[in-house]
């Protein structure tokens, strides 16, 4: 089991598509990869697409919370989309929906950011 991280840039937004399983083992790599992207690129916002994420535990919540704080400190936003996957119940329990906006898909997520940026 592994995790694939696909990163796409769209103006000042970085789109991250996660495929596979996000647990303690795979979260280290994702964290490093995303930190690198956020340091290097001039991206203010991040859209995370969880459509093909088949598993996530609280290590994944840690990754999301960490990026949320990082982006917030820089005046940016973290947005989630396609959370109709098996991870919904966990995200709901964690209370993340209270602080992170969720959209159906990337198009809606991106258009929400055009309003704020």
């Amino acid at each position, binding site marked *: 089991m592994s995790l694939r991280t696909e990163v796409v840039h769209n103006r000042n937004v970085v789109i991250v598509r996660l495929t596979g399983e996000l647990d303690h083992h795979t979260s280290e790599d994702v964290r490093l990869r995303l930190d690198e992207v956020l340091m290097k690129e001039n991206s203010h916002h991040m859209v995370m697409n969880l459509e093909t994420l088949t*598993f996530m535990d*609280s*290590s994944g919540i840690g990754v999301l*919370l960490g990026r949320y704080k990082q982006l917030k400190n820089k005046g940016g936003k973290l947005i989630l989309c396609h959370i109709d996957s098996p991870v919904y119940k*966990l995200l709901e*329990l964690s209370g993340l929906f209270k602080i992170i906006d969720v959209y159906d898909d990337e198009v809606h997520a991106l258009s929400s950011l055009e309003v704020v940026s």
Partner: protein
Amino acid sequence: MNAGNKMRLVFSARSENESLSRIAIAAFASQLDPTLEELNDLKTVVSEAVTNCIIHGYDNDPNQEVEINASIENDRIIIEISDSGKGIEDMELARQPLFTTLPDGERAGMGFTIMENFMDHFEASSTVGGGTRIMMTKRIESKKALYY
């Protein structure tokens, strides 16, 4: 009849074995014909407990071992996950949502909360210096009708 069926799995406390533990429990539970949500609940709680053993119990020492014992009794799955690591000093505090001993490590502090919420019964016992044992059970709803 599934009554009395059991399994035991012992593996190195290495993070790459977290997925092994999830797959093993999912395969074992599949004989109860769980829904996808139930299966995902079981995988999540096992992942939480095993991660706790590795990170907290053993401080990421790969020479240590994590043990999972699971059994099926009628429509219930009973899962025990244990380590012989450093143990938990204050169990009440550890079970508080969002509490973590590793705030810098981006730990969410949600492990016990998730286990309590996703399972029907949850128990944790720990001895400082002696290890931690988690015992949890879940009734698999999809087979409920058979036992009425």
